[in-house]
């Protein structure tokens, strides 16, 4: 009776540029993706999985630079497992392309499955890959699996990249895979990629998700699946976290520094801030003083504590109080300028946003002068 323990991973997206991040964050994120390979290797070792199947999108694009390829291969070489890499939509297979390059440099423990033909992983275990040859394939890439013959009694492990037809959420009708493919193709397990989160579809089909999260919108950390396969039985699937960075999205409604403090305390409870990227949207209405104080806390403290803070403070409206105004100046030209700006903000014309920022700036400048005067 054939049995096998494999590690199922996908969507490494190596070489993703993270161009909108500052250089240091960019470097850290890129490095983390490569580090994920090491972590997968150690998870495989520790869980006794001798094979790592990667269900597509190993690389972020069809033609990453040599450095990425070399880094990835050298890290895989170090791990005492066999890596099965399959092209996905981001790194789809094509003649003369990326995969030829990878194959030509791959160490012996790295196998590339870029043709839709069953391949024997080891005695009694066959991998049925559905590599993608285009970024978008209208046809079901797994359709061929049903016709792939394997020796009787052997484990049939499907490897595919695409959306399950029932998702519907993305509206992306490419690379569609029917949800009952495991059953129709007689698969013991169908390892899927493309969906960056962990997702089980029935008993024998699952998305492993990416080992290292690469975008906001998915709070859970990256991970993989360790699947215990035994022919005739349902697979045992265990999700194991491998991600280093957490990508959190939050929307806080705060009106003053105290409220912000409460939120921050909760955030700290969620994990190590240095391993966290936070997309923070502020909402609510605050006085000028509070808004400035809130932003100062975020900019001067939180931003430094986090790996990265992506702050959108536009949602936090300003309602300057009389105290705010008085703080700028009670009389004279400053008071007049303040009044002019406040009127513009309240009138809500086309430049209301600019006026609000200008008012805030004026307030900040006034505070700065005050601080200077005190010193």
């Amino acid at each position, binding site marked *: 009776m054939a049995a096998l323990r494999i590690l199922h991973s996908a969507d490494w997206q190596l070489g993703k540029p993270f*161009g909108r991040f500052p250089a240091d964050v960019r470097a850290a994120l890129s490095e983390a993706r490569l580090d994920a390979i090491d972590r997968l290797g150690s998870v495989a070792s520790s869980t006794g999985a001798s094979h790592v199947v990667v269900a597509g999108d190993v690389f972020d694009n069809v*033609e990453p*630079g*040599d450095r990425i390829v070399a880094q990835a291969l050298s890290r895989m070489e170090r791990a005492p497992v066999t890596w099965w890499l399959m092209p996905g939509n981001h790194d789809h297979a094509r003649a003369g*392309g990326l995969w030829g*390059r990878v194959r030509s440099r791959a160490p012996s423990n790295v196998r590339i499955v870029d043709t839709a033909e069953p391949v024997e992983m080891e005695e009694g275990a066959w991998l049925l890959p559905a590599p993608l040859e285009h970024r978008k394939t209208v046809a079901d890439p797994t359709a061929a699996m049903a016709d792939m013959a394997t020796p009787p009694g052997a484990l049939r492990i499907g490897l595919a990249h695409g959306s399950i037809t029932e998702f519907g959420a993305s509206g992306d009708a490419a690379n569609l895979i029917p949800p009952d493919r495991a059953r129709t193709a007689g698969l013991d397990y169908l390892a899927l990629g493309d969906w960056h989160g962990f997702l089980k579809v029935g008993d024998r089909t699952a998305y492993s998700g990416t080992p290292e999260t690469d975008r906001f919108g998915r709070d859970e950390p990256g991970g993989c699946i360790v699947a215990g396969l035994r022919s005739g039985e349902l697979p045992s699937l265990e999700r194991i976290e491998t991600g280093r960075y957490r990508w959190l999205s939050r929307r806080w409604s705060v009106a003053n520094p105290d409220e912000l403090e409460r939120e921050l305390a909760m955030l700290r409870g969620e994990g190590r801030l240095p391993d966290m990227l936070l997309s923070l949207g502020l909402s609510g209405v605050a006085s000028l003083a509070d808004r400035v104080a809130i932003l100062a806390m975020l900019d001067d403290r939180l931003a430094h504590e986090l790996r990265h803070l992506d702050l959108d403070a536009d949602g936090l409206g300003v309602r300057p109080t009389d105290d705010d105004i008085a703080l700028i100046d009670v009389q*004279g*030209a400053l008071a007049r300028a303040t009044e002019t700006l406040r009127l513009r903000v309240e009138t809500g014309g086309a430049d209301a946003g600019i006026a609000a920022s200008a008012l805030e700036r004026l307030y900040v400048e006034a505070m700065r002068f005050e601080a200077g005067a005190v010193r």
Partner: protein
Amino acid sequence: MILRSIALSNFRKFREPLRIEGFTDGLNIVIEPNETGKSTILEALRAAFFVRYSAKTELVRSYVPLGDDVAPRVAIAFDVKGQGWTLEKQFLKSAFVRLEGGGGRRESDAAEETLQQLLGFERGNSRGTDEETRGPLGMLWVEQMGALEVKGPNRIVRDSIRGVLEAEVGAVTGGRRFDAIRAGVETAYSALRTPATGKSRGDLLAAEARASAAAAARQAAETGFRDYEHALAELDGVKARLRLLERDLVDPETVETRKALEADQKVAESAVLRATAAEAQFGRAEEVARTASSRIERLAAAETRAVAASALLQEKSVAEAAARAASDGAGDEEKRLRACLDDARSMREARETALGQARERARAHAVAAAARRAVDARRALADLEARERLLVEEAAGAIPERDLGDLAKLERAAIEARARFEAGAVRVEVAVGDGVPLRIDGVESDVAWLDILAATKIELGDAGSVTIRPPRGAGRSIEADLATASEALAAALRSLGLDSHSAGVARNERAAAAARELTALRSQMAAACPGDATIALAPGADALRAFVAELGAGMADALPPADDLDALEAGLGEARLAEADAAGRHDDSRIALSKAETVLARTQAELGSALREDVAAREDLRNVLEGGDRGALEGALAEARRERAQKLEALEDAREGSRAFDVDAIRRRIENLDRAARRAGEERLELTARIASLESTIAREGTTGPAGVLAEAREEEDAAIAAVDKLRREADVLEMLRSVLLDAANEASRTFMGPVTRRAGHYVERLLPGSGLSFDEALGLSGVARAGMEEACADLSRGTQEQLAILTRLAFADLLLEDGAPVSLILDDPLVYSDDTRLETMTDILKDASSRMQVILLTCRSKAFRHVDANRMMLK
């Protein structure tokens, strides 16, 4: 502050002591010529108040009169707030200062300090040029031309005025706080944009440059990636083509096909050869058969021809004989008819001759008869003509009635003259013997008598003479009258050929009768000559006379001919008809003859050709028969036909065999196969080379990660754009803040300067009605608003600038005065550029001001200020 007196010695051009006193509280005008040292007075005042006694600066040394080594000294007496003060200051040598007043006396630094406190100024720099420290007096003591420059007041004045204004309208500008914040905003803004033009700079410029560089990089990356993708796609395509090509190249089916085609080609080619040979053999057999057949045909033709020629010859011989006979017959007939015609013609000619002769005879007879008639007529006419001549003669004797009348008168006159003569004259009758010559009055005469009326000598021969003398008296005239009348009568009778008048009358009667008869006679003569066409005689007597005269006497009397003309003519008609008939018949016969001759000629020609054809046909037949007789020929033909049928069969077989293969098509297919193989080989080479090239390109480009580069470039561009947007927004925010602050500052300044503007406005209204002043933050006059138009100070005329400068000083002085500051206005040579009206207005204003403060004008133009009511002082 009221200046009371000023004394100076060893000061510039005043080596000798100069003392001016008598300044009053109000308006003082110090008048002095140029170069007398009016400006030095103001200089001395400044030295006394603002320059430290101990100073040894260049300025101080300039106080020493040129070339002297003396101590410049100034002494001034003045009141402040009603208290009298004296100030003495000596520079350089034994320098000292002494201030007395306020119940005390101070010297050196104490004196200087007290002075400063008293007059509100500060210790300035050692050079004594620091305007900022001089306070109100520094502003109000205006040196020559100094007012031409519109400038803000010095710091002390500014601060004082600010203090006054803040007390009046409150602190409106925000002071240092505002300035600092504004400066901060300005700095932040100018880090991003040029304040003047709003052009990007600094971080914003860098960010924009980064964005455009990123866009360019992204475009380049896109191009690189696209090229790479194209290379990949092409490689894919090329490889697919190569695969197909190689499969085709080794396709066993193609090889088999080609072999089969080659075999087919051989078979087809031999079949074609066979068919060609069969075709040639058949052609030959057919030729033999055709020859045999044609020889038989020729024999048949020769035979037919010989028979036909013989028959024709026969026919033509008969026809020729018949034609000949016909021709001969026609010839005879023609001859006969020609004889008939000749007879008819002779007959007709004979009859014509006979008729002609008969007619000639008849005509001759007729002519002769006519001639006779003409002669007869002539004869009758001759009688008539004789008678006519007679009658003409008689008729011609007619005398005209008038002549006859005249004659009658003459006859009566002659009778009457005779009667009178006979009564008076001597008649002498003479009878002379024969031969005796009678001469009357010497003239021979033969008269038998003569009437003598005058002495007349009558000589008879030699016999002497008788002279007869009638009585004297009327005898002579009577004789003359008679002679005249007789002469006239005789002449008239002579001319008429008459003897007497009665004879004339008788003659006229005869002439008239002759004329009447002549008319009748002439009609008779005309009737007697009717003319005769027979003898070509025209009517008329003349023609007849001529005819007869020509006829002469040869006239024969002839009997009329006995011919029967009618019978003769009938005979001639018949003869003519007979001739015509004969001529028609003859013509017919001639035509018939001609036709017969033509037929004969033709039949003869036909006969000739039939003869020749007969000869030729015989010859031909003989020739044909030489090649064998009919039996032999027919045998040969049958043999040839059999042979031909055999060959045709063989040919059909061969054709059938070759038709199974289309040699050309087979060859084309083989060529096509070869060409395809050759091309495939070439293409394989090309494709292989292309694949190698593409693969090396891909290998080279792929390692740089074009897609990765593109992804990075895209994100870099997005990030750069985001950064630019952020900075732009910041710049926009700062720009708005900046403009709001500027507006606020301007507004504040307007509010703050209200009191100054009001006070100045009071003066300005008098000078420039309807105008307003505006001040900058340093309290400097910045412009004038006239009729809603803001004019910068610098754009105003010099005169106006000076006037405004004085007015604003006055306005500030008023404010300072209200603040209790010591104020004194000294103007050195002012209003030089003012016209008379302005000058008057200005002096009015100054006069007005002098009620509140002491005003001293130093001028060299005594006339200009003559109208001003003031304390005048002359400098000597």
